[in-house]
């Protein structure tokens, strides 16, 4: 059993402090993934924090059935929360990303984050998520589990995402 699975079991038994192990092991990747979806690190931190609280509640209330790996399960929660937050933001277009440049560390990374989010903006959520999960190094089987589809569907989404980006470039 991995350290993460062990920590999750401890949380399920009531040891809240064990959740720190889960956070320390996954925060960097999850915030980066969410930031790539959102185009903003500060918004990603809010989304990931909210996701951790949801995950913690689920563990304490016995709603994590351990069929999935803890890390894959967390990826799923964060991807869904990030896509939801992105949709909410799109509905209320008033919130700009302008403050990110000042607060998000290296300007180069912030600009790249925004360029990436803008470039992938027109892709459907499932294709964008598949592309970014692949970029995180997740195998197709794990991406399929995160997105709740088959591995074949993941491959199809990746092909379609690239085709859409290509079409946009030539169109």
């Amino acid at each position, binding site marked *: 059993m991995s350290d993460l699975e062990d920590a999750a079991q401890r949380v399920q038994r009531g040891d809240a402090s064990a959740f*720190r192990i889960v956070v320390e092991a996954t*925060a960097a990747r999850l915030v980066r993934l969410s930031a790539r979806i959102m185009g903003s690190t500060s918004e990603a931190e809010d989304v*990931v*924090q909210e996701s951790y609280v949801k995950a913690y509640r689920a563990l*304490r209330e016995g*709603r994590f059935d351990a069929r999935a790996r803890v890390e894959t399960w967390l990826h799923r929660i964060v991807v869904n929360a990030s896509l939801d937050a992105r949709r909410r933001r799109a509905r209320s277009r008033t919130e700009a990303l302008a403050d990110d440049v000042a607060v998000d*560390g290296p300007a180069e*990374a912030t600009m790249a984050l925004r360029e990436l989010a803008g*470039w992938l903006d027109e892709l459907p959520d499932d294709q964008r998520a598949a*592309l970014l999960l692949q970029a995180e190094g997740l195998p197709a089987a794990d991406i399929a589990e995160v997105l709740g589809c088959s591995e074949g569907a993941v491959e199809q989404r990746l092909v379609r995402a690239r085709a859409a980006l290509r079409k946009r470039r030539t169109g």
Partner: protein
Amino acid sequence: MTDERDDIDERLARLLGATESVGAKSAFEARVMAAIEAEPIASRFWAGLPRAAKLFVPVAALAAAASVAWAVVAAHELDDASLATQGEPEQSVVSTIAGAEVE
């Protein structure tokens, strides 16, 4: 076609590379743990139950309440029946006596 694909993969690789250093700020983990510690703690009994058992609890409580109500009603009916028959001879005894008189 190949050039276009190369362009796309190249741009994707460049942007992913440039955002590789993006991550949580140093205070992030402490912030998350503070939020976790602020979470209300569910009772150990309730938290320890599997989900299916949690669904079963209200159903079992309703069934138990219905059983108690039925038992109370049945006890009352039994009491009423007992009171109604007190002092009356049993039907079989009445029939035997009636039969003897006819003979």
